[in-house]
């Protein structure tokens, strides 16, 4: 797998998220309280709420529109709600955030 640099870790607030535009649609890149980074689809399966605007707690995010909660590791909706968001591989190297280049390749395909 090769990686694409999308920005500095510092560009995402602690317990926050930023949006990344790709050809597969918008992604949300999260930074948890413990500096772990996750990337998922930015689109809530319920009514397309923008997940990058949600509250990040532990390794979860709550959608800002109707409070569905997703596990960032698996992408699964938690609790009574059923649904899943796509997850993508990310890693942090020397303070830079790298995302799997599948987001580009798939777009090219």
């Amino acid at each position, binding site marked *: 797998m090769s990686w694409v640099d*999308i920005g500095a870790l510092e560009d995402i607030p602690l317990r926050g998220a930023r949006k*990344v535009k790709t050809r597969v649609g918008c992604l949300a890149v999260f930074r948890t309280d413990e500096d772990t980074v996750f990337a998922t689809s930015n689109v809530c399966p319920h009514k397309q709420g923008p997940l990058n*605007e949600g509250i990040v707690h532990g390794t979860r995010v*709550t959608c800002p*529109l109707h409070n569905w909660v997703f596990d960032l590791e698996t992408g699964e909706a938690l609790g009574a709600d059923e649904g899943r968001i796509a997850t993508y591989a990310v890693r942090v190297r020397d303070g830079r955030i790298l995302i799997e*280049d599948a987001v580009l390749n798939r777009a090219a395909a």
Partner: protein
Amino acid sequence: MKNLVVIGAGMAAGRLIEHVSDAGGWDITLFNAEPRGTYNRIMLSPVLSGDKTYAEIVTHDDAFYEQHGVTCRFGERVAGIDRAAKTVTGTDGVPLPYDKLVIATGSDPFMIPLPGHDLEGVIAYRDLEDTQRMMSLGAGHKAVVIGGGLLGLEAAAGMHARGVDVTVVHLMGHLMERQLDEAAGYLLRKELVGRGIKVLCSSNSSEILGADGKVRALLLENGTELPCDLLVMAVGIRPATSLAKNAGLACGRGIHVDDQMITSDEDVLAIGECIEHDGQIFGLVAPLYDQAKVAAATLTGAEAVFVNRETATKLKVTGCDLFSAGDFAEGEDREDIVFRDPARGVYKRLVLQNNRVIGAVMYGDTADGSWFHGLIKDATDISDMRETLIFGPAFQGGSALDPMAAVAALPADAEICGCNGICKGQIVTSIEGGAHDLDAVRAETKASGSCGTCTGLVEQLLAVTLGDDFQMPTAKPVCGCTELTHEDVRRLIKSQELKSQAAVWQELGWSTPNGCHTCRPAVNFYLLADWPVEYQDDPQSRFVNERKHANIQKDGTFSVVPRMWGGITNASELRAIADAADKYNVPTVKVTGGQRIDLLGVRGEDLPAMWADLGRAGLVSGHAYAKGLRTVKTCVGTDHCRFGTQDSTGMGIRLEKALWGSWTPHKVKLGVSGCPRNCAEATCKDVGVVCVDSGYEVGVGGAAGMDLKQIEPLIKVATEAEAMDYIIAFVQLYRENAKYLDRAYKWIAKVGLDWVRETLANEVERTRLLDAFALSQSIYQIDPWAELAGEEEAAKFAPLADLTLEAAE
């Protein structure tokens, strides 16, 4: 059937009749000088203050007497007892025979024989008539209360709650000297004075002055004249023994009785405050209930012995939390453990002798009262827990903080309900026997049925005993991350001085590392409201609208609502809004219900630039997205309207300028109308002002959303400045106390409008609130749009990266 005659239908007699009629076999006749049956005399104070109605404190109604076959002769004072003939005579002069007689005539209030004590308008505080007399006084009148004991202070606080100007004159150096030591007396006095009740200690009265046969003033020995329309003497009580004395029964201070409640005549019993037992006389209900039980047993031929027991005292004045039990005089072989928290007004003192607690006085925080009371009664050796003793049962054994631990730690014989002498064990047995809510426990054990101060403890026992099966009525945890309620969290943040989220999670034992979307916004608000200087607001703990300072729409775009102070705008503001609408392709421009303009459908990326443009025209964020000040709606008032009485527009603008930018538990909306036609719809706002010729009527607690609520009157003042002060102090009180996401009306329903009024009427407290608000505004009254429109912040509104143009490798 044998004849039982009971003289006096007070609290002791009421209880006696319940027990006797349960056993059966008696034809009961009940005389009462008051024209009514038994009511809960100790609850006259809540009736006086308006917290309860008389109907709510009646314990034995007509139906009760009828059902139990009691012949009632109410409004009839027994004139004499003929013991040889075994008859009593009422007002009709016809002797009524008895087989057994019970005297339960209670006490007579003591009236100091000062010159003028028989003037009209000089009363005692004993029965419903006295209470009604005080209630009818009317706001703005003056009253003097002689006596700073339990009764005098309840009378004073009750009248004060009704707007009466009250002065308490007390002979001793500190209030309630029989129950409190000097330090606690001081705190109590400070609290009452802070509310606006005048308190004169070490003051001797010399004469009651009158005019036309009516009281006019009290003259003190030092020459001070205290004008008054009513003078209440609450200086003590004397057992009502004259009837017994005239009948030749043995009396000392009270009617002599033995352990079976029998007087010197074996067919005559006596109970209640009129008796003397073993040299003791009585003034609180708990022992009287025991006497009633013993007397009933004696009458039915069962064996029972009256034993006097230690009773504890509480004052029934809302907001004055005090407790005292045992002996707390100083002495050579006695030691003290004292705990003080001046900021919270908390004082606790334990008096020890030979490693046993013999006395306890507490002010401000009395939660552990019954535990200490138990230690006193049981003479428990406290050597092992001496170091942590003062912190109460929750701290014994190391584990702290669980609000239930204290009550769980109580032994079975710890007294919970002082009035009825009900122990923890009895309550637990009744709960285990099927009494699964407060009403059921009350019905079965009577616990919490009298003065009600132990209601919280009984609820905690329900919770401890039933575990998950019991839903604490008020105690819902904030969310799944904690067991604590919003109120607990607020209290702990203040008392433990928790000033960061980390401190809250750690010290309060959160079960998640950093909360969730429910608790984090609440905790963020509590921290910034309580510690505006020390705490740093955390945008990541805010709902998107407050983080983005715009309302998110269903398609992920945002709406932008600039402030229009008091609904007033001008051509250049409108031009700037129109230009922004053009430049950023705003699909919808709407006039809102809050007298301003909403630009809907703005792309998140465009927000900072649009704000910068609007800012150049002087427009700032309208906080249409905030749990904070929203709009202040106004009408045209005296500026243009032919009916306007005051400058409602100007006042609305000034209010909005004072309050904008402040964060509140839920949104806050105001309205100012220039006359009662109320074109600004002020009466359905969180705070509404209706201007009238003579000034400003300020109301609070209105809403017109999911619930429709009309405001309730807070105060009427003559000047705009006073009205503004009250409103700002009100908003600050709401900020400091309400649960997150409780609109003002919901919060008021919980704490009571009377409490809000009382607190705000206290000038010291009002000033403190105004200062606290000003401090917070010095930090938070900033235009967030201007802050976020700067280049560095603006960059964060754009995507982190745009990979749509990047080529794959």
